[in-house]
């Protein structure tokens, strides 16, 4: 195999892998604090992509696309806070049994609801916002400007996320809740409030992925499904609850899919990810970085 082509596959894999990781980090972040899986994560991705599309096309104009991303994130953050408050919080109040089942039922119901809502509000058609940037090159790979923007945007958002979690009071509350729920409560922190913020942040990361990827993977009611599936694969590989794990696993999955589909056979691209998942589950069932109660 020619080394130029090989490096092209590698770069393509890295770009897509880091973008996948954003989704996984949102899922794992919510899990690490609330100890529940949000199955409707893809619908928040979808919401982010629609918001971005409507903001850019109807209000901001193509040149202000970068203003749309934080705005979309902010709206989804708010929606997430409201959903947590009225639909998810009840499971943490009092001594409810089977929290997991409750969370699963609610978030799966939300998934169905939001998909249908999108069809009703915007129709079954796809949309795409105008391109964020023209084609460019990363080393030897001709790459779409949109992908490049998504890569940089993801890195910026992850950087901000890291700063918030590591350096602020809110971040301390988030980390404390992830590491020791009882400890943080008896230190006087309203853990339900922390949950609400965590859920808001987690879903706004999904929204960021949706908004950044809107010109690449388009906007339609089910566009979150693929991102969610990749997100869950990454979590299994990287370890549930581990943010560095999600990043590494995202890169790994992106590169393996890219190389596997051209070096072995292109017809089973999705299978390579699952083989990796199975291999990890066999060798290290908790994932590469899996450890209980860990964040950042």
């Amino acid at each position, binding site marked *: 195999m020619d080394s130029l082509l090989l490096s092209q596959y590698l770069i393509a894999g890295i770009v897509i892998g880091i973008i996948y990781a954003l989704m996984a980090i949102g899922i794992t972040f919510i899990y690490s604090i609330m100890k529940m899986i949000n199955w409707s994560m893809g619908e928040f991705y979808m919401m982010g992509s629609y918001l971005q599309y409507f903001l850019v096309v109807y209000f901001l104009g193509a040149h202000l696309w970068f203003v749309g991303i934080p705005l979309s994130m902010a709206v989804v953050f708010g929606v997430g806070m409201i959903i947590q408050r009225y639909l998810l919080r009840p499971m943490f109040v009092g001594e409810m049994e089977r929290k997991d089942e409750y969370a699963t039922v609610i978030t799966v119901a939300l998934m169905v609801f939001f998909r249908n809502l999108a069809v009703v509000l915007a129709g079954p058609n796809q949309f795409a916002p105008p391109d964020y940037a023209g084609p460019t090159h990363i080393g030897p790979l001709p790459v779409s400007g949109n992908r490049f923007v998504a890569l940089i945007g993801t890195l910026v958002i992850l950087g901000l996320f890291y700063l918030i979690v590591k350096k602020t009071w809110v971040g301390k509350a988030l*980390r404390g809740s992830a590491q020791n729920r009882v*400890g943080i409560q008896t230190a006087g922190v309203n853990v339900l409030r922390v949950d609400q913020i965590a859920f808001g942040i987690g879903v706004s990361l999904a929204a960021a992925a949706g908004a950044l990827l809107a010109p690449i993977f388009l906007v339609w009611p089910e566009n979150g499904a693929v991102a969610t599936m990749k997100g869950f694969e990454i979590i299994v590989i990287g370890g549930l609850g581990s943010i560095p794990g999600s990043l590494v696993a995202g890169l790994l999955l992106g590169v393996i899919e890219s190389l596997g589909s051209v070096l072995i056979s292109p017809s089973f691209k999705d299978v390579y990810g699952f083989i990796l998942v199975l291999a990890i589950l066999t060798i290290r069932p908790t994932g590469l970085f899996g450890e209980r109660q860990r964040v950042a």
Partner: protein
Amino acid sequence: MSADGIQLLETKNLTKRFGGLVAVENLSLSIRRGEIRGIIGPNGSGKTTLMNLISGLYRATAGAIYLEAQRIDGLTPNVRTARGIIRTFQVPKVFRNMTVLENMLVPALSDSQGDRYKRHPEIVREAQALLQFVQLAHMENRLAQTLSGGQNQLLQIARGFMVQPLKLYLMDEPFAGVNPQIKSVIMESIKAMNREKGITFVIVSHEMPSVRRLCDRVSVIHEGRCIAEGTLEEVAHIPAVIEAYIGG
């Protein structure tokens, strides 16, 4: 409850059942402001359940809890902490992936400290002073998971002193599995805080020598009920107490 405000904490007929098991039954306690009260009793007598009821991790099946004559048994744990009740756990609940100093800052997140942004440098200074006091200052940038069990107990206790306002400090087996040097640091800090800041302590412990040195009075809990109260010397001669310990 007392009208003169001498009583800081009172429980009235407090009962907690887990299914058919009665862990705490009709327990009434009065703790004076400024007191250091010991809670003793055989294993499984309901001491930790009592701590959990007062701190709010459990909801009582029946009965009431008053802090400064106000009912608090309907409040969540964090609200009780904001009202001035802190507790420690036998297995220290520290934040393993935070540094020692970061652990100390967590109580500043309490709802009662909304001015934390403004006071940030001051809070950090207080935390460092407390770490100095409990002889952990040299470790302030280490992750809590690298500390020994005894050091984590010390950290947990020191962190509790960061709560503001602090009225009632509940400690669950603070001396269990702790080396003599750390034990004496814990004892000194309890005495100092009681003397200087008037903080009331309720200490659950099996360590009779420590209880004798620290506590004004002890309450003996057996099968969820308070069977005796007085100085350690007084209760040690009550037949029911002797029977509980020997029988238990």
